[in-house]
Each structure stands twice: as C-alpha cells, then as structure tokens.
C-alpha cells in the first residue's frame, strides 16, 4: 500500500486521477456506505447519497489541503451529505427533524433490506430518538469502532465533548431498550 501523500498526489494529477479515484472508491465504498445508511436508513437513499458523496470527493479532491486525513475528510463529506439529505426530506414532508427521524424507523419491519430482528429494530428506533450529534457519535463509536481522535476530525468537535455525547447516547439507548423490549 502506497503512503497517503503519494496517493493524494495521484488523485490530484490529471493523468493519474481516474485510476487513483477508482482505487479510492474500491477502498472506501463499503465503509462510507454503512456510515450513510445508518443515517438515512433506506438502501436507495443511501445509494444516492453515496454517489453524491463520491462525486463531491472527485470534484473537490484537487482542493484537498491535507489538513486532516483523507479518510476523515471523506467521512465528513459523507456525513454532511447524509444530514443535508434528511433535512431536505424533512422539509419536503413538513416535519420537524426529530419527527422525521422517528418516521424513518417506523417502517423498518417492512424494509426489504433490513434483516435485523426485533432487538435491532428497537435499537434503531432508540438511536433515531437522539440528537444528530449524539446519533453520529454513537454510530461511529459503537458500530464503526472509530477512535475519538478520528471522530473529532470528522465532526470538528473536541474529544471531551464527543465522550460526553457518547455517554449520553449510550444511557438514553439503554433506557429506551429497557422500556421498549419485552
């Protein structure tokens, strides 16, 4: 595996851009997809947002200043794309964002691409009662096993604030599951 600096140079070079970009997509597509999917819930929406995310990355790669890791930068783009996507959807539905998030998980039982059992449905419903930042932190820490340092880069938030967010998120989810799982 070549080092990140060389890889970024290839991504920014006119001759090497396309080939390097194909490599980038192959490496990160699944991680970014799952990150997006856990925010937007439906597979079709996740697919759309993933495509838009990579298009943004492709168009913006020449302006990438390497102030953060490439991975963090892409994660940030995917997060922003996902959040603006659900905000747009909520506005179109004339719903408050928290009501819209509740609606997103209300039909998981009938989602063809959701194969979880009852406890996974309760878990998703619990996650989607959280404020956006707590939800993101919980997903990235609990499922994606990212380190606070990485999450801090992605969300531009201090590690201390993230730890507090994660703590609140976990306690709320635990309480939700205890109250809603029989």
């Amino acid at each position: 595996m070549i080092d990140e600096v060389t890889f970024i140079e290839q991504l920014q070079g006119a001759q090497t851009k396309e080939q390097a970009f194909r490599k980038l997509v192959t490496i990160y597509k699944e991680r970014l997809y799952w990150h997006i999917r856990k925010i937007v819930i439906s597979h079709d929406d996740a697919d759309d947002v993933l495509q838009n995310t990579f298009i943004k990355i492709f168009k913006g790669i020449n302006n990438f200043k390497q102030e953060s890791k490439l991975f963090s930068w892409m994660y940030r783009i995917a997060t922003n794309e996902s959040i603006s996507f659900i905000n747009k959807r909520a506005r179109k539905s004339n719903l408050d964002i928290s009501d819209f998030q509740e609606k997103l998980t209300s039909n998981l039982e009938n989602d063809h691409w959701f194969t979880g059992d009852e406890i996974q449905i309760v878990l998703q419903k619990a996650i989607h009662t959280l404020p956006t930042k707590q939800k993101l932190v919980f997903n990235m820490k609990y499922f994606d096993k990212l380190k606070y340092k990485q999450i801090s880069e992605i969300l531009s938030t201090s590690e201390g604030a993230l730890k507090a967010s994660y703590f609140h998120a976990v306690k709320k989810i635990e309480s939700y599951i205890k109250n809603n799982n029989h």
Partner: protein
Amino acid sequence: MSKPLKHSIDYLRNKTQKEHGFSVPENYFESVEDVLFSKIVEQQLPKNDGFVVSEGYFDTLETTLFSNIEFPKKESKVISLRKRMIRYIPTAAAASVLLFFGLNYIEITNRTSFNDINFSDIENWLDEDYLDLNTTNTIFVDSDFTENNLFEEVVLSDEDLLEYLSTVDNSTLTEIES
C-alpha cells in the same frame, strides 16, 4: 471508560450483538464504481448540444414555410346536362319497370266480384250507412212491433173487408178455386 458507561455498553452488546440489522442487495458493492463513473462522465458532458439558430428564426418560420407551399385551389365541379341525364337513365328505367309491375299488381288484387261480399257486410251496410231510419223511429215505439200487435189484433170492419175484396182480381180467385 467510566464504570456506568462500561456497564451500559456491555448491556447493549449483549442485547444487540453489535449488529445494526441493515443489509444490501446482492453484488451491490461490485457495481458502485461503474454506476459512479457513468455519473461522473455524464456530469462532465456539456449540457448544451451547441446548435444555434439565427435571431427571430422561429418567428418568421410560418411565413417562410407558407410562401413556399403551393396549396391546390378549390374549383367548383361543372357537370354537363347530357352527362347528368345519361347518369340518371338507368335509375329512371329501373323506376319505370317497378312502377309498371307495381300498378298491375294493385289492379289485380283490387278486382272484386259481388260474390265476394258477405251477407253480414251487406247487413252492416244497410244498418249503419244506407238507410237513415231516424224519422221512422220517431213515429213507432217498440211496443208497436210486438207479435200480437202485428198479427192478432188487426181488426177489419166488414165494410173494409168488402172494399178490399172488390179490388181483388177475380181471375186470381178462379185460379185458386181450380
């Protein structure tokens, strides 16, 4: 990690097995690159096809178009009387034949003899149409026409009888005697 947090995370892990439950269509990830690159290429293509028309081209299109089209003039058809007559000859001939047979047929079916008339028809005719008995009806009443009145109660005086007999032809009486 603080004790309460560790305790809560352990609880969640035991409950959910760290699974989120989402899945994707089969081979979805294999097609991500191709779909993505076709989108990128599509976005790089120029939005306009580059063709232009001269200013006001569409405003003058009809005028230019119609000036170059020769529309056939509407002419009224002239049919000569001779042609018209010739055209009607077969129709007239057919009508004449039909009229000839038609009239004969009516004449044949209408020829009626006296024997064809029923007695009941004659009676009806006499009763309803021919004889007007209204005046006679006012003189007689029903009782005048009973059997007794007509045959039994006719009383002739001797004078009347003698007068009647004197009018009778004697030759007739002789014939009766013989």
